[in-house]
């Protein structure tokens, strides 16, 4: 059970995130676009910190750049289209 699920909304496993990093993802948005981690209903609230830590092993400068984290996206919480 080493291959744990990192993104619970999209069911993305550790191995998939490591693969994305090997393919060149250097920040959270790059992992997101390759694996869908962070694209689900919680918008990365659960997995983003873990993904960032994985990106920093070995430690890199990714954490210091403002682009390293994905943006928080409007409308922040799932919102009914009818309520817009």
């Amino acid at each position, binding site marked *: 059970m080493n291959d744990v699920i990192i993104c619970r909304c999209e069911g993305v496993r550790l191995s998939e995130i490591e693969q994305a990093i090997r393919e*060149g993802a250097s920040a959270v948005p790059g992992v997101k676009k390759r694996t869908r981690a962070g694209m689900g209903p919680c918008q990365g609230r659960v997995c983003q910190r873990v993904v960032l830590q994985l990106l920093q092993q070995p430690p890199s400068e990714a954490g210091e750049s403002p682009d390293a984290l994905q943006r928080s996206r*409007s409308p922040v919480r799932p919102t009914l289209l*009818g309520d*817009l």
Partner: protein
Amino acid sequence: MAENVIVVGGGIVGTSTAYYLAKMGIHVTLIEAQDIAAGTSGACDRAIMLQSKAPGPMLQLGLHGARIYETLEDELEADLEYRRGGGMILIETEEEMTAIRELVERQRQAGLDIALLSGEQARELQPGLGAHLLGTTWWAGDAEVNPLKVCFAMAQAAQRAGAAIRMGSKVTALLSERGRVVGVEAEGKRTYADAVVVALGVWTPLLLRTIGVELPIVPRKGQILVSERVPAFVSHNILSGAYIAAKHRKDGGKEEAQNPAGVGLSLGQTGSGSLLIGGSREFVGFDLSTTPQVIRAIGQSAVRLFPKMAGMRVIRAFAGLRPYTPDGRPVIGPVEEWPGLYVAAGHEGDGIALGPATGRIMANLAIGRPAGCDVAPFALSRFTQ
């Protein structure tokens, strides 16, 4: 003939160009400031829609691109979520009906057998459409694809064919010798080549300006909403008549005053089940923020056209910068005053449909081969002379 080419930019145009060059056995290096699909190609919708292209050179290039997509999954050995499910333009008012009838007539003359459906016929084909619709167009040849998957698959196929890809490396200067571009400088490192292709979309003018070349590509922001995963809801591309009006309009018209953010509906469903609900067309520089007013306007137009969508949840909104040009056509070809320098940029909202075709044309041009189709309408010289 060029044996060694640098491609600047890792969006759909840059990765496609690199792929076709590598496939021809050319030594190619793709240099990208951030990551593959980090810019416009990673912040757009999924349509390969031909019926909405302006009749003429854009439609011809679109047809060329559509043919490439038909076999691209096999060629790249990748799932691209390609689906040829057809497309429709929704007509809400008599004014739109008149404009769309004209467009359909011109497209038919160009060889696209687009049908005009009554509201009833359209609701049969696409359940959930609002009862007030006067009708829709329908063309079975429209398709869709996951643009992220296309970019990553192009980059990987290019690498398998021998291309080198350098990410996180921003090109800051073009190197010239005796009136010719001979390479680039990125992060203080100089790399030389026989030809340099700039495929930087909205950022293209910033690099070309460093050697005195001006081109009129301007960022035009498009905001898009993403829904939660829902059961199969739409199986084709859908655009509203208002979207078409915003796409083809000129600055300063009556429509611009009524709809300053250029909101019109575009709708598609991803392989995961989320709906991509666009969009807007706004000239606000390089600003990438999403705004409550536009999110609300897009949501309202979605619910007006598809009342059932009122019960679906939006989980995020994002914005991308479409590379607008004054005549709505991209720039594809050489920079005449700088031998060795080429540009492939300025596709506005048509980059996904036209990216692979542009890459194939650009790869040919960069090594001195015939383009394979008429590229005169896309020459940079139409703006500089």
